[in-house]
């Protein structure tokens, strides 16, 4: 949905994030505030409704209470960089329509959907090590073991990741964890919103997360040549754009302030992943 592109070096991101850290010490207080909010919402949700309805098992009861009042939304993510963010949002938007989309259309005309799915699987498989580590860091041993098994099976029987043997045949699901979620697991709030050029929507915490995950990516571990990495990353982006052609257009085309809509969608999406 959102154009991602990795044509900038990880070092640059590291420097940029570091500078942002120095510039905005305030982010710590905001992060704390946000954590308080999400932590505080649970007791509120579970109050009162405990003996209502024919709730069966304890687990079920907990869930039913939760969905009832889930309506309350989190406070908007702080956006001290809004002018810059809006500028880069506009930049990425143009990048999508002028460069990425035309390329992805040609690509999509050449390679059938099955191939695109296989390519997506290949790149997804490369993120399994990071997922395994992050599952473990969050205390999810089973999820971590499942990622290890997925990575092993899909890298071998699944033909270096192009097939999803582990998922299709063994029913092993991906955990979808990343370092940003691990940081959130230990209480880190989003900090503030960052709309990176090329990379798209993120926040302070998830930018650090991206950086952390980058270090255990096979491209880095295997010391793949920088130009090759950029080439492969470009294929990854073009491929995922080809698979979702039209989604971004529909979303921003039916939003009144697309920047605000994308920012909120990012926040909701990430919060959903963190709560899982």
């Amino acid at each position, binding site marked *: 949905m959102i154009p991602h592109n990795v044509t900038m070096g990880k070092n640059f991101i590291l420097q940029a994030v570091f500078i942002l850290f120095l510039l905005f010490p305030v982010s710590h207080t905001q992060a704390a505030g946000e954590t308080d909010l999400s932590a505080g919402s649970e007791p509120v949700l579970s109050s009162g*409704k405990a003996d*209502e*309805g024919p709730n069966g098992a304890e687990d079920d009861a907990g*869930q*039913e209470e939760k*969905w*009832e009042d889930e309506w309350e*939304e989190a406070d*908007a993510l702080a956006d001290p960089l809004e002018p810059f963010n809006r500028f880069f949002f506009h930049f990425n938007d143009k990048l999508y329509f002028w460069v990425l989309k035309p390329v992805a259309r040609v690509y999509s005309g050449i390679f059938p*959907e099955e191939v*695109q*799915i296989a390519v997506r699987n290949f790149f997804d498989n490369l993120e399994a090590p990071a997922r395994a580590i992050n599952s473990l860091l969050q205390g999810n041993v089973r999820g971590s073991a499942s990622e290890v098994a997925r990575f092993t099976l899909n890298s071998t029987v699944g033909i270096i990741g192009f097939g*999803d043997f582990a998922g299709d045949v063994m029913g092993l699901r991906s955990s979808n964890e990343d370092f940003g979620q691990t940081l959130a697991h230990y209480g880190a709030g989003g900090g503030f919103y960052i709309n990176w050029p090329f990379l798209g929507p993120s926040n302070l915490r998830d930018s650090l997360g991206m950086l952390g995950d980058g270090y255990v990516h096979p491209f880095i571990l295997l010391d793949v040549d920088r130009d090759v990495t950029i080439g492969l990353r470009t294929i990854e982006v073009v491929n995922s754009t080809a*698979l979702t052609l*039209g989604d971004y257009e*529909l*979303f921003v*085309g*039916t*939003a*009144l*302030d697309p*920047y*605000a*809509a994308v*920012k*909120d*969608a990012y926040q*909701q*999406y990430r*919060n*959903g*992943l963190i709560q899982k």
Partner: protein
Amino acid sequence: MEQLQKSVDELLRILQSQELKEPDKKSERKQLIDNATNEIFDFREMARSSLGQTWDTLTSEEQDQFVGLFTRLIEQRYKGKLDAYDNQKIIYKKELINGKKALINTAVIDKDLEILIDYRLKENQGKWLVYDLKIENVSLISNYRRDFDSIIRKEQFAGLVEKMSKQLEKSDTAN
């Protein structure tokens, strides 16, 4: 809930009907889809909650006008997806009911990927209607509330209506 399931099945049937996809059936198809979606979604309630507190400050004419614009905007957002519907598998995962409120967790398998879609429903006079949905945890209503709020803060309700009308015109001519 049974009535809702029927409406959903009916909508899927209309969407997949090859006969209705003929060019000369275009307006008939649109009409049928509109009727079917009205049996599933409570557009008025969706419009109300997406506007938040501003809703209460409006006259009933303004409210009606807004519901109309909002409904068309939602249609625009999902029309492409509806038209592209091609027998994707829908999995009903779980259904939670408490009094007059319900939550249904579903997943759609598209391009080998599981997309989570959660529906929130309310019962009104024996009829269950959807008043919000979450796609991959992003609530449609919350998202529009933030979006609308961003405009209202700067340009008030009048500015919002103007923007919506313009946006809809733009996409109408694009199609």
